[in-house]
């Protein structure tokens, strides 16, 4: 088989026939390719390429695996670090609670705080690690192509593993303190999902913002701190609403973690919660995810140029 191919017209080149046989001197062991990639400038809002995300799904697994491995390599305590974080905070809060009158909805203090910390930390770590992931891995963004979405999502996935370890410890604490879950426990998967949605949405949003505006990097820890105070981790949402509902109604529920943390406690240790607020928080979580994803998608194409 011999084919002569002339090159496309262009003002400044030489026209010479190309003999394909000469180049492919071996057997043509590659079948005609199936995939066609089209590259052209894109404008406006572009939907996610679900097919591509599915094709690259194994890479997401590898990135999560990498984050988990790296976090605990060369450490003495290994996975115990995942549990130390909430335990340490819990101890501090318990001590502080001794000085204040903050209600713990009738539950034992350590259990109350730990149960609130577990979903909170899932969220907080998602946004702080996820938010910085793009900037921290600039070399990946500029040297190889894969769906950029995976970069902020991987730390969120890795956090899920920590979450599971923490749940085990929480169960042990519940047994120790004689606290039982309520019927709301059936909602737990939903609550976890909402946390992941809000966390991912914020990670995508903050991650994109940090790529363009470097000072966001320093804003993130600050933001997390503030967010902690507007979420009912250290205090009880119920007590708070008893005092302030007239002032602001259900406004605090706009914070997705407001409903989730309270709901999580209600599920696992049987403290009261307000379904309306949970519904509002749920809607908020969905909106945060949609907004974060849309903003991410819109700025994604410029990542390699500005990072």
């Amino acid at each position, binding site marked *: 088989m011999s*084919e002569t*191919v002339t*090159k*496309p017209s*262009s003002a*400044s*080149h*030489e026209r*010479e026939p*190309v003999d*394909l046989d*000469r*180049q*492919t*001197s*071996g*057997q*043509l*062991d*590659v079948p005609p*390719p199936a*995939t*066609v*990639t*089209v*590259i*052209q*400038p*894109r404008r406006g809002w572009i939907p996610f390429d679900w097919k591509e995300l599915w094709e*690259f799904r*194994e*890479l997401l*697994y*590898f990135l999560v695996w*990498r984050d988990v*491995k*790296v976090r605990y*390599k*060369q450490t003495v305590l290994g996975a115990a670090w995942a549990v130390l974080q909430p335990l340490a905070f819990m101890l501090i809060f318990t001590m502080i609670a001794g000085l204040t009158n903050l209600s713990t909805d009738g539950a034992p203090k350590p259990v109350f705080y730990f149960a609130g910390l577990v979903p909170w930390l899932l969220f907080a770590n998602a946004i702080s690690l996820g938010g910085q992931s793009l900037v921290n891995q600039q*070399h*990946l*963004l*500029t*040297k*190889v*192509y*894969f769906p950029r979405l995976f970069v902020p999502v991987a730390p969120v996935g890795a956090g899920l593993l920590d979450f599971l370890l923490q749940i085990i410890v929480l169960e042990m604490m519940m047994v120790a303190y004689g606290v039982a879950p309520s019927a709301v426990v059936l909602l737990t998967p939903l609550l976890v999902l909402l946390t992941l949605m809000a966390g991912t949405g914020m990670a995508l949003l903050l991650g994109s*913002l940090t790529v*363009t*505006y*470097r*000072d*966001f990097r320093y*804003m993130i820890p600050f933001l997390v701190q503030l967010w902690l105070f507007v979420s009912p981790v250290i205090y009880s949402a119920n007590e708070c609403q008893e005092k302030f509902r007239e002032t602001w109604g259900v406004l605090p529920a706009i914070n997705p973690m407001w409903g989730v943390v309270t709901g999580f406690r209600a599920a696992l240790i049987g403290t009261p919660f307000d379904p309306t607020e949970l519904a509002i928080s749920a809607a908020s979580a969905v909106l945060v995810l949609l907004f974060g994803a849309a903003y991410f998608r819109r700025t994604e*194409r*410029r990542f*390699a*140029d*500005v990072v």
Partner: protein
Amino acid sequence: MLPAIHVEGLGKRYKIGVRAPDDHNFREAIVGLLTAPIRRFRTLSEHAREDEMIWALKDLDLEVQRGEVIGVVGRNGAGKSTLLKILSRITEPTTGRAELRGRVASLLEVGTGFHAELTGRENVFLAGAIHGMRRAEIIRKFDQIVAFADIERFLDTPVKRYSSGMYVRLAFAVAAHLEPEILLVDEVLAVGDIEFQRKCLGRMREVATGGRTVLFVSHNMVSIESLCSRAVLLEQGRKIMEGQPRHVVETYLASFRSSTGSVALGERTDRVGGVHARFTDVHFYDAGGRITASVPMGGDLTVEAEFVCNQPLSRPRFLVLFTNGMGQTIFHAKSHAAVDVMPDADKGGKVQCRFPALNLPPGMYSIALRLNDSVAQRVDGIEMAASIEITEADVYGTGRGAQEPDDVMFMPAEWAWDYR
């Protein structure tokens, strides 16, 4: 048959401003938003003024058929890496369109995806996955990859403990076992020792002759000529030539040549260093002390380099390096070897390197100029500073050519005979 790569009118525009993106400050952005909404909005949505924009690539048309190996050459900043980045989907084009038929893999850097804390084994999986391999595929090729890299003993050591050679070998081994239909390669062969480079070139050749399409960017003219069936020359973002690798390489090298024998170097950006001292000009003089752009084979050539320094340079070491049209290094002329004591340079000056008999066959040669300090640290270096042409010369006075086309050097010889 539809081409494997079809590029039409591709262009990429970058915004360059007095302020680099790194300085982008959210506070300023917010304040700006409040005080001058229209101006800020335009800046944020990248509608900058014309003089702030630069076209890294403009109106590029290219077609690569399946199974072709096409080389892309050009100076630094010509747009080669931008082209690769766009085709690799790392960055988006501003104009134009490209179509790639087949699975694409890019090799723009050695070690992409590697994480220092993970072991060699773990990194093979991670890097393989990042480059697009499926887990099953990595498992299947794992042994081959490790054998290619020759690091079996160190598989379970974190790569941060690897020597740079081992790291490079492993990184390339992973990349070498990608099986894409289209491979985009940027200069990654310029790493590792000779043995390894030979292995890499060999593997590239296998890939090239296996029916895969390769787009290969390189500064190594030897590999361009040996691997590519076609080459493209880019300059300042535009394609200015396309054709046989040998011709394209010649044109590329000839572009460094000055018609007058003098080349200004002060403003050149393709240099290493140049901060404390820099070469400002280079001149070529012939036997009679006249400025020339060419010298006959075997003739007398003086290379004079002018330099300035903004702090005194103690016992500087100068180096002139000759490279031929194929990119092969011919020789280094080192002042440190020839001169016992090079005086300290205060503000700058001139340095001359004379070759009483430059025994090189006719052709274009490019010279590199390097300046090191007394402890051999590079102060300034320009790799393709200028070109000089060596012309045919009737060295023996007989009117007959004294060398053959592929000779690497010319050696004057004397003949005697004794017949019966």
